[in-house]
């Protein structure tokens, strides 16, 4: 008798567990940072040329599209850093229990949003 596996491939009925969300966001933020890096490198060199260059960049940075890009970049860096520290701790077998892992993933999400908020509103 052929045993039929039950399959559920409707992606809308699936939910990622929270540690998985943190993990996929770690990867996505890494890709985002990599793709935004040429702009950052160019802006870095540009800002160090003179006072006028620096001021020009600051006026550009206050316009809305660039601001959104900057928020995404800063959030990406924060999330990548903090989730990366969490992954290193997991590699060292710290926080492998399910409850602890859920708690740390919540903490990672909260801290990364909090730092992004601090950077832009203080």
């Amino acid at each position, binding site marked *: 008798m052929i045993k039929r596996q039950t399959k559920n491939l409707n992606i809308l009925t699936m939910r990622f567990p929270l540690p998985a969300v943190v993990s996929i966001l770690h*990867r996505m933020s890494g890709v985002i940072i990599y793709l935004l*890096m040429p702009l950052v490198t*160019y802006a870095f060199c540009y800002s160090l040329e003179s*006072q006028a260059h620096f*001021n020009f960049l600051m006026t550009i940075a206050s316009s809305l599209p660039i601001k959104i890009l900057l928020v995404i970049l800063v959030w990406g860096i924060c999330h990548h850093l903090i989730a990366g520290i969490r992954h290193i701790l997991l590699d060292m077998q710290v926080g492998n229990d399910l409850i602890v892992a859920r708690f740390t993933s919540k903490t990672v999400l909260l801290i990364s949003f909090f730092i992004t908020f601090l950077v832009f509103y203080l």
Partner: protein
Amino acid sequence: MKRVTLKNPFGGMTQWLYQRFTAFFMIFYFAIIGFYLTTEPFNYSTWNHLMSPLWMRINTTAFFLLMIIHAWIGVQHVTDDYIKPVFFRGLINCALLMLAIIQIIYLSYCLMGREYV
């Protein structure tokens, strides 16, 4: 079972270690930048002052080099997972590596060629 060794400079274990050690250095760089920017106001003179000393230039260039090693290993894993045809994967990997190398050359050129404040 095959033993995991560090003999192969491009093997999986070595890549894993490279990624962790580069990450470890980059945390310190971010700590320096974060500490400086929270204690001083952010404007051109403080920014220039931070990036001017030789040790900070070397630090920044080293940071970029390590970041590119870190990112390159990560990019390889990502393209490995999502792009199945080998030819296109190689092409995209090549393009992304070129992007990274151009950046590191450009950055070291404009950092090391600056006048000291």
